[in-house]
């Protein structure tokens, strides 16, 4: 007798261990071959009181019962192929896509001592932390149970965590600064009662996210001016007590979207597959397997270049560098709270990236076409588009001086003007003289690079 050989060509399994070997005195019928290994095992388990059964044994018994004892199960089981087909049909297209299935067997994991792959200790099954509410009793500990537990009104976390993230998005810092961690290792809330109140409001509104955002942006605390004085800065440099309105650098996607929107380039189409806009060469190749199906980045053209940034294709090993530079996460570990840094590399993106230069040209065209010939009018229009107010006199003066210098420069060097306007794939407005458009492109780029533009 040979054990552990799948077929004669292969090596036998080395160091294999066997849990159960049974010898029978006669040849078994095919039915018995199918049944006996389970029946004998089940009989052994049943000989012990059920209170002593392990989870695995429970599982074995229910398997055996359903497959070999319970006739109604067989009836239901026969329907499965038809139902599966129907499910397949339903999941083709449509608004809902099933992305995961509950695994049929018991889910478990081993605790690894210090994460060492060979140091297995205890075997554990899914459950909630002991200091939080229990899962509903008598139901399997699966995704459904987790989902129901998550949105149960008795769960103290979900509503608080959710409203805190909304707050974080609007105010730049959460009421609990560590939006990812409400435990003892996280920060304490700066305004615990407000957090409680918002959480209850969220629950009672029927988990209405739009309602919460509206509530927050219409609050007097949010509508405060961003201006701060030295006293405020000295007492509360991080504005944790919200003595003035929020002011912080916009997130990567938001910045790119602002550039696209303000320049009239934005394509507002909703949904559809991800797109591959401009990206410097050799970003993917540097990090990929030679056989990777995302070895080469093939940039798309036309509308794909101007979709909102949430539609940008992201390869986890090499996220789009213009967004990576602005602290967009790599997506290899969970991130609920981004860093917010200011670096010279960011200045290089907003000054030199094709997308931004093209946006500057688009913005220039908009104001040249739409605001008449007067420089001050055009500057005011740009300011209105980007900053939602007229340009204050000193700002306008600086920009006017700049546009005059640039116009002189590009009039003397039409080749340079032409080269600058060739950047980007969107056709430029040929009705505007090249030196003029080039000069205004530079001024638009200046506007796009202002601290006030880049900050929310």
């Amino acid at each position, binding site marked *: 007798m040979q054990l552990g050989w799948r077929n004669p060509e292969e*090596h*036998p*399994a*080395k160091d294999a261990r066997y849990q159960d070997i049974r010898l029978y005195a006669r040849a078994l019928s095919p039915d018995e071959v199918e049944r006996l290994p389970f029946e004998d095992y089940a009989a052994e388990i049943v000989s012990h009181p059920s209170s002593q059964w392990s989870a695995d044994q429970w599982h074995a018994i229910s398997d055996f019962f359903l497959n070999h004892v319970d006739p109604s199960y067989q009836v239901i089981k026969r329907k499965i192929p038809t139902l599966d087909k129907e499910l397949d049909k339903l999941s083709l297209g449509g608004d809902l896509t099933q992305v995961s299935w509950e695994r049929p067997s018991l889910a478990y994991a081993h605790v690894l001592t210090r994460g060492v792959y*060979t140091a297995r200790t205890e075997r554990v099954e899914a459950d909630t932390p002991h200091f939080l509410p229990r899962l509903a009793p008598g139901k399997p500990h699966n995704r459904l149970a987790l989902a129901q537990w998550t949105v149960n009104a008795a769960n103290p976390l979900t509503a608080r965590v959710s409203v805190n993230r909304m707050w974080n998005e609007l105010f730049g810092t959460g009421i609990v600064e560590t939006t990812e961690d409400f435990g003892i*290792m996280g*920060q*304490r809330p*700066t305004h615990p009662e407000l957090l409680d109140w918002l959480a209850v409001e969220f629950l009672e509104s029927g988990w209405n996210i739009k309602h919460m955002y509206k509530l927050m942006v219409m609050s007097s605390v949010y509508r405060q001016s*961003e*201006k*701060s*004085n*030295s006293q405020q*800065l000295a007492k509360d440099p991080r504005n944790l007590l919200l003595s003035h309105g929020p002011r*912080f*650098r916009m997130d990567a996607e938001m910045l790119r979207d602002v550039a696209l929107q303000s320049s009239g380039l934005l394509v507002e189409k909703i949904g559809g597959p991800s797109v591959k806009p401009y990206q410097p*060469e050799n970003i993917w190749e540097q990090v990929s*397997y030679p056989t*990777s199906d995302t070895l080469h980045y093939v940039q798309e053209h036309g509308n794909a270049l101007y979709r909102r940034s949430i539609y940008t294709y992201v390869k986890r090993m*090499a996220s789009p*560098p*213009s967004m990576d*530079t602005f602290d967009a996460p*790599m997506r*290899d*570990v969970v991130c609920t709270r981004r*860093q*917010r*840094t*200011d*670096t*010279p*590399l*960011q*200045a*290089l*993106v907003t*000054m*030199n*990236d094709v997308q931004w*230069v093209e946006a500057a040209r688009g913005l220039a065209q908009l104001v040249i076409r739409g605001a008449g010939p007067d420089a001050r009018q055009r500057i005011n229009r740009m300011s209105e588009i980007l900053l939602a107010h007229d340009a*204050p006199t*000193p*700002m306008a003066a600086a*920009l006017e001086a*700049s546009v005059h*210098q640039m116009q002189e420069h590009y009039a003397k060097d039409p*080749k*340079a003007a032409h*080269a*600058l306007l060739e*950047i980007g794939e969107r056709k430029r407005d040929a009705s505007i003289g090249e030196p003029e458009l*080039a000069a205004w492109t*530079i001024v638009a780029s*200046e506007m796009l*690079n*202002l*601290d*006030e533009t880049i900050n929310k």
Partner: protein
Amino acid sequence: MKQHPLCTDCENPMTPLDLPIPGAAKREWAAIETRRRFLGRSGKVLGWAALAGLFGELGIRAYARGADVKVSSTEGRNDLRLPHFAPKAKRAIYLFMSGGPPQMDLFDYKPNLAAQFNEDMPDSVRGNQQLTGMTAGQAHFPVAPSHWPFRQHGKTGTWVSDLLPYSARMVDDLTIIKTTNTDAINHEPAIMLMNTGNMNAGKPCLGAWLAYGLGSMNDNLPTFIVLQTRTNPKENNQPVSSRLWGSGYLSSEYAGVGLRSGADPVLYLADPSGVDRDVRRNMLDTVEEINRQTLVEVGDPETNARIAQYEMAFRMQSSVPELIDLSKEPQSTWDLYGPDAKQPGTYAYNCLLARRMAERGVRFTQIYKRGWDVHGDAVGMLPVLCQETDRGTFALVTDLKRRGLLDDTLVIWAGEFGRTVYSQGGLTQDNYGRDHHPRCFTTWMTGGGVRPGITYGETDDYSYNVVKDPVHVRDFNATILHCLGIDHNKFTYKFQGLDQKLTSPVPAFVVQGLLA
């Protein structure tokens, strides 16, 4: 409401000094208290600290003087009180051999193996080790002696394989560690452990720690630069990604800046066509003028940081092209580095750039060379890999030495693990493959802080287990930090309630036997 004892956000926070705990613990708390205050993660704090990370305090101070700006948060760096003691090395260059070079084909000479060709490695050597899925199913573990002869070199008579004729010439300068060992057996966790001290993603790498702790030594270039070697498609290239030079929970300013071979060495560095330096200057002046108005109007100190960043960007636009302009390198450079060094993206080219960065005060340079993952056709691939790297490595060390830079530069050569003495797949008279091996692998260091001309640690007859003086990855990293003047136990960053450090929670030790 009852305060958590460690809460520092409240007006009168309780501190451990108020708790009924031993006096020693209170003293320790008092000692690190100042540092804790710096550890916020808000943009307001980071603006200036970040700047310091990328371009050094000098740059900020110079700028701040001109602009009459008070630099405040660089105090954070002073709060770290780094370096902890006088460093032997001011900068480091890490030559990372990704994939796992086979130690017994390069440095770990095992003359007895030739007689055991194709014999099964005794089970007792392997013990109860769990192998990778690639060889766990093998019925036999046939010993594959190295295909290449070894010879003794230098005054020290160090054995080196004929695969490394150039490295062999500098053995008297090297500190060879035969007993480096790791916890991980597959690339991703192993390469993460090697670089970040932890198998899981999300932790800062060595370079980020150094950028955070020591800051920059120059005004015009990043503190931590990563150079990737162009891949050879014939080699088995495991992917590497920016998480290896990421900053984890430290501010992302401390992440490595990738320097690319080609027209744009730093992404988006070049001005758009049609924009010359005068236009750019004019543009920056206008932007700054308006930003100053904003600063007065709104009063956000971050605006100051942004003004400075734009100036730094302008300076980088000339300093980086200067860095990679090799036209003024004398013929002696090319004689030393070889013709490969003229090709951007080659390992030799990157070695030359690493020397130029060392001269210009870049704190930490890491060169990645992929392709060492020789599961099969080791006899075909190793000569290629060695030919690509050996001369560049030798040239870099020699060049640094000639210029007097090796005294305060630590050069590190390492992969993420070693390879098995037994052959993966078929063993023939002419060829073999080698699987991953975490229990021992050879690395070396040279330069500031380490003892030249020694071989540290001993492995067994099969280069399989450590017999004497193991050097765990954590110890390896602790030793690197030591050479740079950092006590790895004191160099921590509070995150998720822990004082995180490069050498992770398991105790690590500076390997005294490696130190000069």
